[in-house]
């Protein structure tokens, strides 16, 4: 138990270090690579805590989709490093003040709301049929998602559709000097006016 906890602490500390590298590295490429490292470490945390399907989904979506998207944009844009880091510490006092305020606020809030002892409410006997016939992580999540929250699932699908359509509409670049075929105009053309008898 103590071995597991120490491994978890080590992985979470590494994730925090990778997050610090994200915000403090000079080049955006290094920042995105540290972001991938942080994603993988957080997925390791979930995998150690036996939420395995969520860990795999995080690994696929975050590393496979979002981080690759960031890498593509970094390589497309070719950002100059020096201009972005002109004066870094201009906003530092205000930011430090706001962060410390939020941190102490959270520290005031945290023990009061977290003192619920959940294990007190759970009956301590073991129901053997339920333990034998119980679902795994994937089955229980799928059962809950498809049975009790289908509208959230449809809403998430609509959100992803909106993201696809919005991204395509934003980045669709219509060239100026390119001849295109207007489909409706082409269908409205009468062949009588087009054909000419050459004497």
């Amino acid at each position, binding site marked *: 138990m103590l071995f597991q906890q120490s491994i*978890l*602490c080590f992985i*979470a*500390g590494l994730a*925090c270090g990778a*997050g*610090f590298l*994200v*915000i403090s590295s000079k080049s*955006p490429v290094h*920042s*995105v690579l540290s*972001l991938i490292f*942080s*994603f993988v470490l*957080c997925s390791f*945390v979930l995998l150690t*805590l036996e*939420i395995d399907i*969520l860990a795999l989904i*995080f690994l696929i*979506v*975050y590393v496979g*989709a*979002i981080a690759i*998207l*960031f890498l593509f*944009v*970094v390589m*497309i*844009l070719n*950002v100059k490093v020096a201009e*972005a*880091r002109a*004066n*870094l*510490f*201009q*906003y*530092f006092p*205000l*930011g430090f003040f706001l*962060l410390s305020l*939020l*941190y102490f606020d959270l520290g005031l809030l945290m023990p009061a709301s*977290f003192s619920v002892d*959940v294990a007190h409410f*759970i009956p301590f006997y073991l129901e053997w049929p339920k333990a034998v016939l119980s679902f795994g992580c994937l089955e229980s*999540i799928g059962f*809950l*998602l498809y049975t009790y*929250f289908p509208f*959230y699932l449809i809403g998430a699908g609509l*959100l992803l559709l909106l*993201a*696809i359509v*919005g*991204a395509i509409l*934003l*980045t669709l670049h219509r060239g100026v000097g390119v001849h295109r075929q207007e489909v409706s105009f082409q269908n409205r053309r009468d062949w009588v006016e087009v054909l000419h008898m050459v004497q």
Partner: protein
Amino acid sequence: MDSRFILPAIIFLFFIGIGGIILNRRNLLLMLISVELILLAVNIQLSLFALILDDLIGVIIALLVLTVAAAESAIGLALLVVHYRIRGSISTDLLRLLKN
């Protein structure tokens, strides 16, 4: 397994994300990356609380937050590319396209 001891580290990751937004205010790309870091920390927190409280709804909400993170990064990066095409820079000091 008791996993409450890992909560402060994830909260620290959340604050690292907010600090990244505040410190890298010039660079829009790093601000988007910091938003991703914040959403990652929130997702891990939701999963951990779902594990601690033995409630599966936290996992469902984590999946929804994951969807929102994917959509946000896609649209944010599309806006970033369009802004870079118009202005030739991604500095937030030049975000004055609506002003005149």
